[in-house]
């Protein structure tokens, strides 16, 4: 239960980190918050030749908001997001989801880019990225490229980075003022990984029908997934509980995780429909309240 031997380096510029990653390729792993990588090292599930610690790179620790994009540097701590009013205002779904990431002790160290790069299908931040069509910014020896979240998560703990690339930032679209959001997670214990979690962002038209909706799920497949059938069924539909409950049943079809130690496949399908129903209803209620507040002011 101790890390294996490795060579350690701690570049203080992004250029130096990229050069090191290019030099060592797959033999090097990036150490960000360490809340996933350190357990993997301690349990000898990972044995990199070189560890590149990026905690000292200040360029990765910025949060920048423009009119329509919130860019969060890869090295920004999850607990910093949790207490950042600017982030809550720009992307409310992040504010709802981040408290569900592990425990506070994990969020004090864990980073936004680390969770994204780790690409765990049960993790909250990858799910939010997929739900909101965020863009993952990666940098390698040949420069920077932007990867849509739906293309970034490629399989169980697998991302689209080339061997010489690292995640440098995540760009979330700023949420429209009238959009409502909901995040519902079921885990065995406080802080455990999600058995199933649903992230929803919804907008209503003047008649109170759902005009746009995004529904993402974590914990039910190798990667975070969108419940597109639920989205299609609810777009243009009334936002009443019966309609939402019926549409949420379609979420069972995206569950591909089989029976495991934590839940049977059948139970996960049940949970998927339940968390989707609750998250959609929460998002609709939030959108209704925002509409009322907006028209009152």
């Amino acid at each position, binding site marked *: *239960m*101790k*890390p*294996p*031997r*490795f*060579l*350690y*380096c*701690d*570049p*203080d*510029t992004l*250029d*130096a980190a990229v*050069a*090191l990653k290019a*030099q060592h390729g797959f033999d090097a792993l990036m*150490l960000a918050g*360490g*809340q996933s990588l*350190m*357990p993997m090292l*301690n*349990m000898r599930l990972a044995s990199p030749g*070189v*560890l590149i*610690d990026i*905690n*000292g790179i200040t360029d990765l620790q910025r949060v920048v908001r423009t009119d329509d994009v919130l860019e969060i540097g890869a090295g920004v701590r999850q*607990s910093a997001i949790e207490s950042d009013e600017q982030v809550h205002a720009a992307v409310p779904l992040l504010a709802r989801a981040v408290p569900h990431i*592990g*425990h*506070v*002790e*994990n969020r*004090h*160290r864990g980073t936004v880019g680390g969770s994204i790069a780790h690409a765990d299908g049960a993790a909250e931040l990858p799910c939010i990225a997929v739900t909101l069509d965020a863009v993952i910014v990666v940098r390698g020896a040949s420069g920077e490229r932007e990867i849509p979240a739906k293309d970034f998560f490629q399989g169980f703990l697998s991302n689209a980075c080339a061997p010489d690339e690292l995640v440098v930032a995540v760009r979330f679209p700023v949420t429209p003022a009238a959009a409502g959001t909901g995040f519902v997670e079921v885990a065995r*214990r*406080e*802080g455990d990984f999600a058995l199933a979690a649903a992230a929803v962002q919804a907008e209503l038209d003047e008649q109170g029908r759902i005009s746009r909706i995004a529904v993402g799920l974590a914990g039910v497949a190798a990667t975070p997934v969108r419940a597109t059938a639920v989205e299609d069924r609810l777009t243009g539909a009334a936002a009443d509980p019966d309609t939402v409950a019926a549409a949420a049943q379609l979420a069972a079809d995206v569950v591909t995780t089989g029976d495991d130690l934590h839940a049977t496949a059948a139970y996960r399908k049940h949970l998927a429909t339940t968390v989707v129903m609750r998250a959609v209803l929460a998002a609709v209620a939030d959108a209704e309240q925002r509409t009322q507040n907006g028209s009152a002011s």
Partner: protein
Amino acid sequence: MTTTENPAATDTRTITLRVNGREITRTVSTRTTLADFLRDDLDLVSVHLGCEHGVCGCCTVLLDGQSVRSCLMLAVQARGHEVETVESLSADQTNLHPIQEAFAEEHALQCGFCTPAMVLRCKEIIADGRTRTDEEVRREISGILCRCTGYQNIVNAVQNASRRCASTGQEA
């Protein structure tokens, strides 16, 4: 740390950090965890290793005032930071810190294995002086497992410590 284009990758490193208010300089193997460094190099054996993969929370220390799992950090990563273990509160059994008094009064420990972590977490929780419900306290300490399952008295101790520090005006 100096800026270089391509810093050398090494398996040992000399680090300077503050531990319980004292500046410490040591040469460490880069694979040494902060938990092992505190226990083996500095004899701070209040840092308890239960699972060594970030599940039990018994190795919790305060890093710049924030609770972190010291088994999930390398010692080398603590360079330039302030680390606090429970040894910093009081080593004098006749003059305990209010949080220690509260834990004793509420019988908030059975085997004691999780206690240093719980005490440090308590220190962090009550530092803001806010009154919390028992339910909130339970959520706040959920990252540390007590295998005696003596949570009720730990919750009581956190509330007790919170009251003590509020009434005395002492900073936790």
